């Protein structure tokens, strides 16, 4: 997260002061410094667990100090600091090697402009803004001075006036939307940090209180010349308090950054990309769990095949090779057979691919997937037993798997047998790139209990034309397929809206609408099937808007 967290306090002598700042620093900025600090880079990081690299009290410190003070540090005169303003010298650094970010904690940010922002935020947070109940979070700021979440609180101090001192933790960020979206997470975690500090200080305070004289007169004289201010270390009796703060702040910055990621949208999102986004669902802790929807599919896969080898890498290459594969599939099956297969695929009939060669089976499935919208694909890529069609419309099976009789009799499906040459089985899955190589050596046989009308949906015809057109390169073909799918998804949307919004629609109306969107009788089945692939987002949106109309 591109923000600065800092601890501020209201000094008895100097007024509001910034004590401690933690900010992420990208390597190019502090290249010299990182190499100077050296050894620390060795530290390994797990996803969430950040290690405090080294508390550079003495030796490594010099390097960091030179680095920190180099670009015109706004140096407050040394006399301007009392014990109450005591902070870290020079600071701490943590490196996150995964994303190449270093987190630097120091008394002040080394950039002058940033410092003035922080200083301003500190002033406002401690002397300007009033939060309800004197302790708690508050948001303020503007585009020039940055947006700030400030959490102000008291720390008990037996020697202080009023027996407490005022502190605040501020998070300064330029991105208001991001900051406000992170509010629940930030406030919750700041509260934990604050309560930790308060708890420690309370203990120290209680001990001091029992030692102090009881009578008010003596107490008064006892308090006449107390130290003007004590440092946070003294108040909490914890020498490592700043290290703890560093680790906490770094964690907050990192975790908050992981919590919400921004993605750049080039134009409005396609239906497929929305489906992808929906797969990332927020978990209770506020973190994004990737591919939630896929869980079911993956579970099944994992159950069925224990030797699950590096599928993620395959996925990467799929999109390009899939297009290649589908062309090959077209050639090897012949136009007629391919038409039948593809026709089944686009109207949602179950495609069962059976074969000994797992990569080949997968390649066939992934090839077919690219003519169907993502939302409609429910894939079980290689299973040892039959899966019902409501579970998956793309099913890969091991060669000897028997398809139950009742399925054979009733279900709408098409069975593709991948007949691989003998040689291949001896050299099993060692050839890593899936697709062409294996596919080339395979033969296919096609069988289906159901017969489809001769005329396929219009979109399929167009797809086939494109596949047959050798002048189109793979990239062009791929984009063309995406466009076709998107074009028809839009028609599906209109139809969906039409059917859901108006209540009961007569046969006449539906016919008219289909005419308007340019769909024929033969497209109906396809439209119906593709409707199931609409994103939840769109569906709920339509349903809620139509409801509000009534």
């Amino acid at each position: 997260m591109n923000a600065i967290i800092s601890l501020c306090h209201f000094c008895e002598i100097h007024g509001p002061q910034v004590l401690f700042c933690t900010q992420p620093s990208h390597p190019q900025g502090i290249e010299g410094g990182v190499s100077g600090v050296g050894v620390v880079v060795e530290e390994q990081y797990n996803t969430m667990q950040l290690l405090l690299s080294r508390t550079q009290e003495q030796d490594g410190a010099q390097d960091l100090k030179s680095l920190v003070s180099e670009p015109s540090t706004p140096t407050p005169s040394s006399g301007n600091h009392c014990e109450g303003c005591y902070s870290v010298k020079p600071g701490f650094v943590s490196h996150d090697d995964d994303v190449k970010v270093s987190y630097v904690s120091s008394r002040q940010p080394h950039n002058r402009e940033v410092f003035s922002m922080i200083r301003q935020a500190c002033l406002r947070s401690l002397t300007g803004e009033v939060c309800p109940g004197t302790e708690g979070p508050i948001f303020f700021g503007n585009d020039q001075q940055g947006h700030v979440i400030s959490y102000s609180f008291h720390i008990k101090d037996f020697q202080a006036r009023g027996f407490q001192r005022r502190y605040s933790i501020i998070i300064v960020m330029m991105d208001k939307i991001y900051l406000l979206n992170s509010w629940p997470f930030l406030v919750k975690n700041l509260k934990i940090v604050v309560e930790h500090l308060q708890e420690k200080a309370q203990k120290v305070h209680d001990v001091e209180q029992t030692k102090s004289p009881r009578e008010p007169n003596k107490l008064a004289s006892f308090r006449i010349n107390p130290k003007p201010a004590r440092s946070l270390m003294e108040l909490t009796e914890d020498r490592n308090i700043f290290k703890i703060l560093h680790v906490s702040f770094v964690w907050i910055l990192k975790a908050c950054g992981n919590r919400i990621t921004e993605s750049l949208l080039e134009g409005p999102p396609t239906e497929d990309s929305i489906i992808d986004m929906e797969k990332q669902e927020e978990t209770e802790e506020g973190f994004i769990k990737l591919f939630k929807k896929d869980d079911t599919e993956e579970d099944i896969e994992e159950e069925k095949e224990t030797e699950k080898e590096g599928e993620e890498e395959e996925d990467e290459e799929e999109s390009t090779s899939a297009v290649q594969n589908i062309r090959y599939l077209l050639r090897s099956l012949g136009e007629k057979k391919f038409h039948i297969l593809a026709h089944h695929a686009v109207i949602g009939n179950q495609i069962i691919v059976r074969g000994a060669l797992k990569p080949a089976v997968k390649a066939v499935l992934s090839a077919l997937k690219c003519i169907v919208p993502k939302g409609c694909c429910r894939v079980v890529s290689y299973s040892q037993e039959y899966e019902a069609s409501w579970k998956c419309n793309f099913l890969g099976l091991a060669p000897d798997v028997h398809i139950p009789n009742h399925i054979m009799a009733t279900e709408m499906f098409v069975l593709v047998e991948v007949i691989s040459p003998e040689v291949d089985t001896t050299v099993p899955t060692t050839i890593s790139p899936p697709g062409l190589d294996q596919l080339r050596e395979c033969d296919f046989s096609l069988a289906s209990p159901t017969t489809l009308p001769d005329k396929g949906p219009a979109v399929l015809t167009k797809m086939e034309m494109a596949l047959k057109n050798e002048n189109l390169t793979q990239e062009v073909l791929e984009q063309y397929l995406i466009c076709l799918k998107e074009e028809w998804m839009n028609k599906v949307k209109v139809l969906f809206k039409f059917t859901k919004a108006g209540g009961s629609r007569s046969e006449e109306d539906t016919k008219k609408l289909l005419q308007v969107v340019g769909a024929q009788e033969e497209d109906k089945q396809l439209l119906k099937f593709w409707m199931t692939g609409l994103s939840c987002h769109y569906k709920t949106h339509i349903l809620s808007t139509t409801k509000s109309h009534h």
Partner: protein
Amino acid sequence: MSSYSEDKVAGSFGSFPKGFGYGPDENDTDTQASSSEHKPRILLMGLRRSGKSSIQKVVFHKVSPNETLFLESTNKIVKEDITNCSFVKFQVWDLPGQIDFHDSIYEECEAIIFVIDSQDEYMDALAKLNATVSKAHRINPGIKFEVFIHKVDGLSDDHKIEAQRDIHHRASDNLAEEGLENLHLSFYLTSIYDHSIFEAFSKVVQKLIPQLPVMENLLNILISNSGIEKAFLFDVISKIYIATDSSPVDMQTYEICCDMIDVVIDMSHIYGVKDDAAFDTKSASIIKLNNGTVMYLREVNRYLALVCIMREDSFEKQGVIDYNFLCFRQAIQDVFEVKPCSGHASMALTSSSDFPQANGAIK
């Protein structure tokens, strides 16, 4: 009072430094009166730990002086609105000593009370005073400067005089160096442990009341015609007197009058018929002291009380005194009724006409 002729535009409250976030919405939380009536603003300034917050607490919150020892250090401006609970309308802003505020804070203020801790080394305070005065005067020449030489309870009488002389001398010298010799600073010896802080605050507030000469004159007429020795017009809530006759104020007299108000209010609270109105139009009290003097308290309006001290033999003609008092009360009410036409918005005084029904009047 000539310095009060400049009209402050009512409703221009938003001039406080924007950087500190006191925007227009701050006004919304103020009383409705704020938009139509300008409330004079008194700034409490001074170094940290000089006793600003304590003064505010003791004078306006009835906090016991001993308890002020446990006040937290002030970290933001604390505004005290003396609008709703009192006859006199003004705002007191208690500023944290550690922070230098933006210049615009002086723009709409009427008076600055600068508090100096007399028990401490005061050279720093004098430097700050000088800086504050010259800056504030530059920005707003109409500001009155009041210097409270505070915490004098710890000093002997000789010391007090010496401190006042010294501070006065140095402050004037400093101002003369800046070419501001004509600027008048008023000095007060104050302590929260006696009534001196109330008296000093009274005088500060009095300067902000444009009707003061008229009221003083009325009081003079009253006492000369009624055989009264000394008369105070008190703001009942804060116990600061907004006017007195022109004879010198004796500290003890003032204190005993303050105490009398406390007694009356307390008695009224305990034995009054209604809970809400401890002080109303029939409130009156007579206390006879064993040295042959009589204290006489009468209600002037909801917020104001007249407290008089006189010889016992003068009090024999109580009918005359009561008649004179009724004349006086009528006159005071007349004075404040002309307020809207006067064009002086600097001191807003209300004349309340809705007097509550009579309750426990004390005889």
